[in-house]
Every structure is written in structure tokens, then in C-alpha cells.
């Protein structure tokens, strides 16, 4: 393993990246290749959907936190309303996140959704409603993660801007105050 160069970086969390990609690739591969080996729809369905659900959990709870420092979830508050919460690390830690990690994170997220859409189109053309069910479930899980993390990232950017402007405003007024007191 070569030393990390100062300009280019290696992956900061290789194990997390590996797991992030593992379940997605396994679900896709199993779905595509299983038609060659297994004749039973049940096994294909159960294993593919299980892998997709595990991938959803891993992305939402583990790799989202570690690779890009974002997290989203849903809570039901005291009044019985559902509230979507988006959470991110503070600004310093976000800036320190590995660029390669986040590149991998976002690209694999989008690519799997696109792959499932293609597979869905294939099964639609072949009029296989039950395979369409599998693709539908996996696609909805991928899209849920994409939407959740995109909203989280937008929220994080908005918070950074607000925080920056507030910091600037408070520091500005405090310098004004000190300047005014000196006068």
C-alpha cells in the first residue's frame, strides 16, 4: 500500500465503502444472474429484496454517517405529527470528509437507481409482473435513500449558509460594539 499523497487522497474508510457497494452490487448481481441458475421465483424475490433492504439500512445508518456525515430519519412528535429530521456534522468535520468517499457514495447511489430502472423496463417489456414487483421494491428503497440524503445535503448547505451569515453578523456587531465603546 503506497503512502497517501498530500494532493490525491485514498479512501478514508475503505471498509465502509466496501460494504456500501457490496449489498447494492450483490442485489443487482443476484437478480440478473439468478435467472440462469434458479428456477424458483420465490428464492429470487426473497434474497434480492433482503439484500436491497440490508443495503438500505447500511446506507441510511452507516455509510451515510461515515462517508458524508449526513443522517435523516422520521419521528413522531408529541402532537402525533410526523416530522422528518435531517442531521449533519458540523462544518469543520464536513469539510474534512474525504472527497473520494463522498464521490463514491453519491455515484453508487445514483447508479443503482438507474440500473434498477433499466431492469424494470426489461421486465415490463417481457410482461413479467412478478419480477416487476421485485424491481419495484428495490427501486423504491433506492429512491427513498436518494431523496432522504439529497434533502439532508440541501439542509446542511442551508444551515451552513445561515450559520455563516449569523456568525458574520454577530461578529460584525460585536466589533462595532467594541469599537463604539472605545470611542
Amino acid at each position, binding site marked *: 500500500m503506497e503512502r497517501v499523497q498530500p494532493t490525491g487522497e485514498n479512501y478514508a474508510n475503505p471498509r465502509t465503502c466496501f460494504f456500501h457497494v457490496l449489498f447494492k452490487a450483490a442485489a443487482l448481481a443476484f437478480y440478473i444472474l439468478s435467472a440462469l441458475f434458479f428456477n*424458483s*421465483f*420465490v428464492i429470487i*424475490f*426473497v434474497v434480492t*429484496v*433482503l439484500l436491497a*433492504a440490508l443495503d438500505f*439500512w447500511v446506507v441510511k*445508518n*452507516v455509510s451515510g*454517517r461515515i462517508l458524508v*456525515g449526513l*443522517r435523516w430519519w*422520521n*419521528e*413522531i412528535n408529541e402532537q*402525533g*405529527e*410526523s416530522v422528518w*429530521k*435531517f*442531521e*449533519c*456534522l*458540523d*462544518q*469543520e*468535520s464536513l469539510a474534512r470528509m474525504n472527497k473520494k468517499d463522498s464521490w463514491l457514495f453519491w455515484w453508487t447511489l445514483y447508479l443503482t437507481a438507474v440500473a434498477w430502472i433499466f431492469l424494470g423496463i426489461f421486465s415490463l417489456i417481457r410482461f413479467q409482473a*412478478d419480477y416487476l*414487483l421485485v424491481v419495484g421494491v428495490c427501486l423504491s428503497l433506492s429512491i427513498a435513500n436518494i431523496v432522504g440524503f439529497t434533502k439532508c445535503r440541501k*439542509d*446542511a448547505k442551508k*444551515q*451552513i449558509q*445561515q*450559520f455563516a451569515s*449569523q*456568525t458574520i*453578523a*454577530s461578529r460584525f*456587531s*460585536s466589533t*462595532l*460594539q*467594541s469599537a*463604539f*465603546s472605545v470611542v
Partner: protein
Amino acid sequence: MAKMSHGDTIPLHPSSQSDIDEIENLMIAGPANVLPARPPSPPRASIPVSSSPFLPSNLPPPPPSAPAAAYHKAPISASPPDAAYHKAPISASPPAAETSRGGIAADGFGSLPNTLTEPVWDTVKRDLSRIVSNLKLVVFPNPYREDPGKALRDWDLWGPFFFIVFLGLTLSWSASLKKSEVFAVAFAVLAAGAIILTLNVLLLGGHIIFFQSLSLLGYCLFPLDVGAVICMLKDNVIIKIIVVSIALAWSSWAAYPFMSAAVNPRRKALALYPVFLMYISVGFLIIAID
């Protein structure tokens, strides 16, 4: 202007210039524990600490109330323009400000990084315990529970996923032919049924949250899962009918409090009838499979 930054949080005292003079006196007199020129943060909604979506790293938010209280005390004791007299009320607040800021900083730094930086094993354990507690809450109903609608607040969809898949697998295993179709039909009927039942409650004007209701209807399948396993092992029709009726009654009894709490009492039957219908049809599927 200096006053504008906290003028919105405090009603402006008519003698604002004298306030500034008194504060200048304090700072020039130099008591160690008076806050330096540091206005409270610009008016904004106070950060709800436990659920704040953003965690500022280097500036713990000064609690808006404490410095405001400090500045309030200056106008109140404005009349005797004595620096020594001003020291007393104001010096009381900065230690309070320090401790409350320390308290808020501790809460703020304590709650958020715990979920963002916790080890993976903690997340797994948390989710597993949530599944188990939801199962206990739903399936072993306590008739003396105060508020049934509140009980599945921490909804999760893992439990329903496992139960639906398990029921489909059991039915498919028991079927001697057309196994794939049986599985697909069972899964689709249960999943679509849960969604449609939730929409039904929402359209009847009920107060229920989509995912909470999906989660509930999935967890209430647990007794039917148990019944299906028993029916798979024993092939006698009479035993099947008895077991399925018991499982059905248990599932309906588990689903009843949540559904009935969610709708208007006059529309209770309209909301509950489709639920019973779905469970009865699943029960027939279990009995009729061979």
C-alpha cells in the same frame, strides 16, 4: 448600531444612551466577571437543542435569555449611577450564563454526535431493540394502556417486512404446486392491503400517520404467522380451522385499539371492517392451502 442587535429582543428603554454609558462604565471599571461587549445573538428562534439539525462547532450558542437578563438589569438599576451598585445584579447573571451555556453546550454536543458518530454496533442494537419493543407493544396488547394511538410512535418497517415475507414463505412451502404464484400473491395482497387500509383510514378523516399504520398492520400479522406455521406442520382441517380462528381473533384484537383510536367514533366500523376482512381472507388462504 450596537443597540439594534439586541433591541429586538428587549423593548427599547427610552434612555438607551444612558445604558450604553453605564455599560461603558462597567467595562472601564473592569470587574472581571462582567461579560465583555458581546451582544446576544441576532434575534432568531431559540435553537431547540435536542433536535437541532446543525451543530456549530466553535461557537456554542449563547443562551438568548441570560445576556438579555444582564442587559435588562442595567436599565432597571439605572437611577443610582453607581458602578459598585451595578456590579451586584450583573455579576450574578454571568455565572448563570456560563453554567447555562455550559449546560446547553453539553446537551448540544452530547445528543447529536451520539447518533452521528456512534459505532455501528450501537445502531444495530438500537434498531433490534426497537423491533422487539414494537412487537411486544402491538402483539401482546395491554387493555389498560392509556393511549393506544401513541403506542407505535417509534415505527419501523423491518418487523412488517419479516412477517410478510415469512407468511409468504410459509404459504408457499405449504402449497404443493404453483409455489411462486402463491408467494407473489400473498406478498402483493398483504403489502397492497396494508397501504390501502391506511389510505382508507386517512380518507375517513382519521388521524394516523402513514408509516405508523403500515408498521402496525405488519406487526399484527405475527399471530397469523404463528398460525400458518402450525397449520403447515399439522394437516388436519379441523385443527387448522381452530388454530386459524384463534390467530385471527388475536390479530384483530391487536389491531383494534390503534385503528379505533385513530378515527371518529361514528366511523369506527368503516375503518375496522376492511382490516378484519383482510385478516379473514389471509386466514382462508392459510386454511385452504394444500
